[in-house]
């Protein structure tokens, strides 16, 4: 299994790691996120983080497969795909086997949220938070509930890079 995206032009299917990808823009992404926020209230962030972690874990597990790649190499693949797919620029240098910090030099959701709605009162990078939780789970082959992730700072709230803290329990 590779990290290459396959496009079936006859059926209009984009597939990566046995999972479908679909193009969408920041207007849809942050509008759908706000809809979910409105419906679920305080539970909304957790639901979106969990959904992102699940989807990332399944996709990346298929890509990593039974390879003998190191943890660092697997995390590098996850970070590269994050950027290739338009979610932002992730610095994973402070992320290791027991967790650590992911810093987003650019974040699609933070940028998109500010562009559409203005500053946010709370962090908005739920997809990125879950994505890197799922990436660490897939890279180490952990039980999903062992990785806890939280966005400590979000560029949609105030100036500065988005920071996501991950912890293995």
């Amino acid at each position: 299994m590779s990290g290459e995206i396959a496009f079936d032009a006859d059926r209009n299917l984009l597939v990566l790691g046995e999972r479908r990808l679909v193009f969408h823009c920041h207007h849809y992404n942050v509008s759908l996120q706000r809809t979910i926020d409105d419906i679920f209230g305080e539970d909304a962030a957790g639901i979106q983080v969990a959904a992102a972690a699940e989807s990332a874990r399944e996709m990346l597990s298929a890509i990593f497969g039974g390879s003998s790649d190191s943890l660092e190499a697997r995390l590098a693949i996850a970070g590269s795909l994050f950027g290739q797919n338009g979610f932002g620029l992730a610095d994973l240098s402070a992320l290791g086997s027991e967790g650590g910090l992911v810093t987003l030099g650019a974040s699609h959701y933070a940028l998109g949220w500010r562009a559409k709605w203005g500053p946010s009162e709370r962090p908005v990078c739920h997809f990125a938070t879950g994505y890197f939780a799922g990436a660490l789970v897939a890279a180490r082959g952990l039980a999903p509930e062992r990785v806890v992730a939280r966005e400590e700072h979000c560029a949609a709230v105030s100036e500065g890079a988005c920071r996501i803290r991950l912890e293995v329990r």
Partner: protein
Amino acid sequence: MAIDERAVVSAIASLGIAGDEEGLIPAFGLYLTRHSADYYNRISFAAARRLGGSGLEDDARALLVEAGHVCAFNTFGGIMKSAEWDAVVKPMIESREDWVRGMVAVINAFGWGRWSVVELVANERLHVSIEDSYEATGWLRDYPTSERPRCYLGCGGVSGIMNLLYVGDITTHPVLDEAYYRSLFRSRGAFASEEIACVAKGDPRCEIIATRR
């Protein structure tokens, strides 16, 4: 010249749309993502099930279709105003209805499953058939056969195309701001979609019809 869908899909696919040095995809005046269908489905269906459990299924559908309207307005609108549209699709266009068919051809490079125009009556009605809708196939994979159709984004997209062409006039390159959005999607006589068949319900394909409400 009719819209050559294969040529359009080939041209869009060849653009090599992917993250730049910042990991972002600025295109068509938007920031694009190549996103996980599973993620959209999980959060959308969680919302539908949460409100559905309170007897508010229609409200859930309205909210999720509204997100689809926002997508259509900005993404489809942005594309139809773009240099790429002018280069690839516009030379094939001979009528306003070709704008609809051209946009459907572009959608067929988005990974959403294959959209086909079944019937287009100018200014009245658009009937689209979708094979491999990511929403419907995602529902069917993870949940029991549905009593309701589940292509919320698809519905927003189909009515969105009609609103851009026959309520507004995307051919004149309008500014796609909030006021213009409201004038297209909140006006009397705006197009709304009904999904008359859906794979999530056990139908062989998804079929969506947009008419004026």
